[in-house]
């Protein structure tokens, strides 16, 4: 049903990747190993960028490749763009040292 290519790397992941530019409002189907997840894209997602495949509460780890890539700094809805505005890296954070 979806005309936009996406990539979901690991069953544990909370994000998927756009393999084409996806406009806001598009319905995409993310193919996982044993299921399909339908996501309504809330804002434009450019090629190579990520969107949430499930709701991520503020402070929760964000998972890609089945591993932690950072934490949510605000609550993130399904279909939202996940990037530096709402995801923070947790490593090498000298700025967080008191």
């Amino acid at each position, binding site marked *: 049903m979806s005309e936009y290519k996406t990539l979901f790397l690991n069953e544990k992941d909370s994000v998927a990747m756009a393999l084409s530019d996806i406009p806001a409002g598009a319905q995409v189907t993310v193919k996982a190993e044993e299921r399909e997840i339908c996501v309504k894209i809330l804002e434009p997602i450019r090629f190579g960028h990520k969107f949430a495949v499930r709701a991520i509460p503020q402070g929760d780890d964000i998972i890609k490749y089945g591993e932690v890539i950072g934490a949510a700094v605000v609550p993130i809805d399904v279909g939202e763009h996940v990037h530096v505005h709402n*995801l923070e*890296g947790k*490593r090498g954070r000298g*700025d967080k040292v008191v």
Partner: protein
Amino acid sequence: MTRLFNEKLQFWGYRRSDGRVGVRNHVLILPTITCATQTAQRVTELVSGTVTFIHQHGCAQVGTDYDQTARTYAGMGMNPNVYGVIVLGLGCETHQAHRIGDEIAKCGKPVQTVSIQEHGGTLQTIAEVAKIAVKMVQDASMVQRELCDFSELIVGTECGGSDACSGLSANPAVGRTSDMLVEQGGTAILAETTELIGAEHLLANRAAHDSVAKKAYAVIKMMENRSIQMGVDIRTGNPSPGNIEGGLSSLEEKSLGAATKSGTSRLEEVIDYAQRPTKKGLVWMDTPGHDIEQLTGMVAGGAQIVLFTSGRGTPTGSPIAPVIKISTNTPMFERMNENMDLDAGTIVDGKETVGEVGGRIMKEIQAVANGKLTKAEILKQHDFGIWRIGPTF
């Protein structure tokens, strides 16, 4: 286990007196001090077959920082892609040319040392170095290539100007190539410690011994502590603005993509910057993520060829080692075609598998080892940069 490559691969290389094999036959004019780099450059304009590099180091350096720079110079000279070396000093610098020259000479190749102060200035020195170079280049041209096994190869791997495709296409393909190289008895270097922060546990789990796993965690901790001690968020430097534009959101995300370059082989050892691997197989060299500094470290460590993946595109090359540049996506491969050698964007488009591209990279390594010029060589991209670990005094 099924073999990744069904034949034993060989290439035509230059056997050196210490037994190592080069894929190029350069005469290197090696300035140990920034003050001598311009003179070295003039000589390469006069004498065909010579190469050099510009840098800003070699004086007022102390301790481990002094040692690391010295090791890098000597390693460049000892790289088997170099037939012979003319070490050029000013005369008064901390990195004395004759000391570097003596170190390189231990591997048995022709080495001569020249000092600008002793030779009475720039013009006399250019004439002196050029005369030595003419003879060395002619001697080098008499060396014949011979058939060598892939087990003689040390291949560096790196990624720079990464995008979100890096971890899906070019890096996993290079990982497959890395596994194929290891299967052939060769050596693959994984580098850029900074860009393994967040993925270190995956590598430590593949370590040959506990001591190797411990060193993997130790070099990660040291690298991460540098940003913590500075009181800065490492993301102010890495991922870079180009990485972020390409869709990478954090260093951890970039690292998990970067680590796929290492394939699935056992991690044999973790070595210092510009150090020669003591084992064959997969080794991790402790370098920063900076493209040119890690490239220089691996080449000084003896890599004859380097694989370099990029999503944003890069002109990078080395004065003495061919760098095969692999794009993560096809649009960039087409846009920057004079800089890129291979395209792994076919994986994203579903036209080729990771294994197919990995095999294609192996074939390209063979062609380049046999003498095929890379784009960076043709464009004279002679990049060089030393990872400095102390202040200049």
